[in-house]
């Protein structure tokens, strides 16, 4: 899959030191500048780990259980979010961002990509 075909995720980048963050910071924690801009990055990488939360806190209780993962994007960013899990998933598998048909939209959701 070419980078252009990969779904993109909106993150934030410091305009001065180029540090990337998953969510918009008040200031850049590295250089303390307030000049931070939104940036679209290719949301493909590898599955660093995942778990199935079976005892959710009150705000997620209606979901019953769900899968949470840590993903290492190809640009070096590590982010957390949901995983659309299948029994064949293994650590180190390639993952891509899922953009359609999600119940939970406040956090990025990934799935293992079998397209390589």
């Amino acid at each position, binding site marked *: 899959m070419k980078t252009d075909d990969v779904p993109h995720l909106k993150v934030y980048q410091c305009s001065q030191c180029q540090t990337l963050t998953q969510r918009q910071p008040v200031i850049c924690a590295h250089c303390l500048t307030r000049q931070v801009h939104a940036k679209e990055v290719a949301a493909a990488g590898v599955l660093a*780990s995942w778990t*199935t939360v*079976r005892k959710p806190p*009150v705000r997620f209780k209606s979901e019953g259980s769900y899968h949470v993962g840590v993903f290492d994007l190809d640009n070096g960013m590590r982010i957390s979010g949901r995983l659309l899990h299948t029994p064949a998933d293994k650590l180190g598998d390639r993952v891509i961002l899922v953009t359609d048909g999600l119940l939970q939209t406040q956090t990025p959701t990934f799935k293992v990509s079998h397209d390589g």
Partner: protein
Amino acid sequence: MNRSVYVAGMGSTAFGKHAGTSIEALAVDASAQALVDAGIDRTRIGAVYLGNFISGPLNGKEVLAGLVAEQLGLQGIPCTKVEGACASGGIALRHACLMVAAGIHDAVLVVGVETMTHASTPEVTSALNCAMDNEYDGLSGLTFPGLFGLAWRAHAQRYGTSREDVAAVVIKNKAFGLNNPLAQMGAALTIDQIAVSAMIADPLQLFDCCPPSDGAAAVVVCTKDLLSDLPNHPRIRVMASVQTSGSARIAQHPDLCSFDATVLAAQQAYQQSGLQPADIDLVELHDCFSIAEIIDSEDLGLVPRGEGGRWAAQGRTGMHGDVVINPSGGLLAKGHPVGATGVGQIVEVVSQLRGVHPNQVDQAGIGMTHNLGGTGVACTVHILGREA
């Protein structure tokens, strides 16, 4: 200016269910025991530090330090509640030690307390999740069992840590707990019982998790000249008192199998005390989950990196092992009244150094405690030593 600091007295309620007892009453109970045990006149107590995490959300009560001090007849002195999630108790102790070391106060009361068992599991999970970065990880629905499920899977993949290895921690700590009257949930367990317990956050199962608990623990720290000369009270000196921080966000942890705050705290504690890992006779470390004991033991430098599971399985962290880990039963068996835990660990180590612990480690002369808060956002490490 840097004066030596000693632990003069200790007290604790049992950890477990204390239905109908107020959070202040538990703290007062443990504190009164510590004051009497120390044999120090109350007029010498210069300050109170109280460790507590979630009394606000679960009890609707704050200003606990002042409430407790008033009921102990300690009036007019600075009374401060400190909060650092599950490390609240350790942080309270560190601040007390700093005050004595710096010459601000000659004696300080430290108490940690929590009540949790009156609340439902989703309520407790939500309250504990206050210790997460809820603008980041909290949005994904991650929980603390979930955090350690992620860590376990990564540790298993990298180091080959098995269900049997991790179960060895549970079996050891639950067995220690059976013999500790302060422990909530001692048990004689088999691997089969653990392996069929409910899945909580894969691969973490029910017996891999510490229970919610009520309880309080307290100590009095002071200068050398205020120590009582009771024959069963050897001088116990605080050889290191360290507090560090790490990222509250799981994605900012470069290694899912390690907590930077623990590694840093251990390095500083060894430096402060002039000791090596091999000098530590026993450690009470933060086994909020079974896999946490394995990771902590490696982060503290007590076990080679990646070997924590195997050392547990081989008995090298048991009573007659290379280093005795959690002879109290740890959080897994003793319970985890969150704000009390860090102080409770000190009570356990003082008992060991006095030679009166129900699971006494032979020739225990130096003990360590490790208290970890949140996703490793706060950490304290203390080293106590018995003086000849």
